[in-house]
């Protein structure tokens, strides 16, 4: 019954713990960057493990677009219980995933008040996507932005060596 909410609470606690930890050590300037990278790193490792489990029975992916579709559908459903609402690409290695009601942000009140704080809560999910893609063989950079509360866009840029 309360299953869905368990991870949301854990995630909120995770973010506040990491930020509290940094604050207690002083150095207000370097704060944001290290906190974000810590959260992203956690997401990365989890993403790798999750992908191993989810792709255990599915056949190999044909190309990058296939992988992104898998992320938008199966992966997102398994983690956030819904699909990505919109996937756009420029076919040159950049993909934009839009989620209109991102599960980890629904508890925030809508409106501009908390828009500034919201990116902290997206760092882990960015890491999750990056870890998942890296385990499938695609090295990329994932960033997220919010324009309107609970609706966010993840931008994935594939690094070509």
């Amino acid at each position, binding site marked *: 019954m309360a299953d869905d909410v368990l991870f949301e609470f854990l995630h909120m606690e995770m973010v506040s713990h990491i930020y509290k930890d940094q604050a207690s050590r002083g150095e207000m300037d370097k704060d944001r960057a290290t906190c974000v990278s810590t959260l992203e790193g956690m997401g990365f490792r989890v993403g790798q493990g999750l992908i191993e489990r989810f792709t255990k029975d*599915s056949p*190999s992916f044909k190309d990058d677009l296939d992988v992104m579709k898998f992320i938008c559908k199966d992966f997102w459903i398994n983690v956030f219980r819904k699909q990505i609402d919109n996937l756009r690409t420029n076919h040159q290695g950049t993909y934009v995933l839009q989620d209109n009601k991102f599960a980890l942000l629904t508890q925030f009140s809508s409106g501009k008040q908390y828009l500034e704080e919201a990116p902290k809560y997206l760092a882990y999910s960015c890491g999750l996507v990056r870890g998942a893609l890296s385990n499938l*063989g695609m090295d990329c950079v994932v960033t997220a932005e919010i324009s309107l509360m609970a609706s966010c866009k993840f931008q994935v840029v594939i690094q070509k060596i």
Partner: protein
Amino acid sequence: MAVCIAVIAKENYPLYIRSVPIQNELKFHYTVHTSLDVVEEKISAVGKAMADQRELYLGLLYPTEDYKVYGYVTNSKVKFVIVVDSSNTSLRDNEIRSMFRKLHNSFTDVMCNPFYNPGDTIQSKAFDSMVSAMMVQVS
């Protein structure tokens, strides 16, 4: 009943190799290493034939006079290689597939272990015992 089982990472270095007659270990390492070429060939060959769905099980890679080598690739490009004795003709395709299935399941468990860093050699006892169960029993 396998004679040698190996898990090879995406970057083609071994994460785990175990063979039963410990004396000939180097020969098995060599066999597994050469089988990697065949695996790569199969992966890229199937890529061109985009019509059919790619399977993870690659089947018999190549037979030598003493041994047969089977391969399997996961979606994260981790390869499993099983070497079996040629004289053991009773082993059917299905049995090999089920061995790979078990390997994949155990590997997934190792991957999800928070104390395991992807890229390290596999030290897990559970994985070890699962592999031992699949190897030929030498008295």
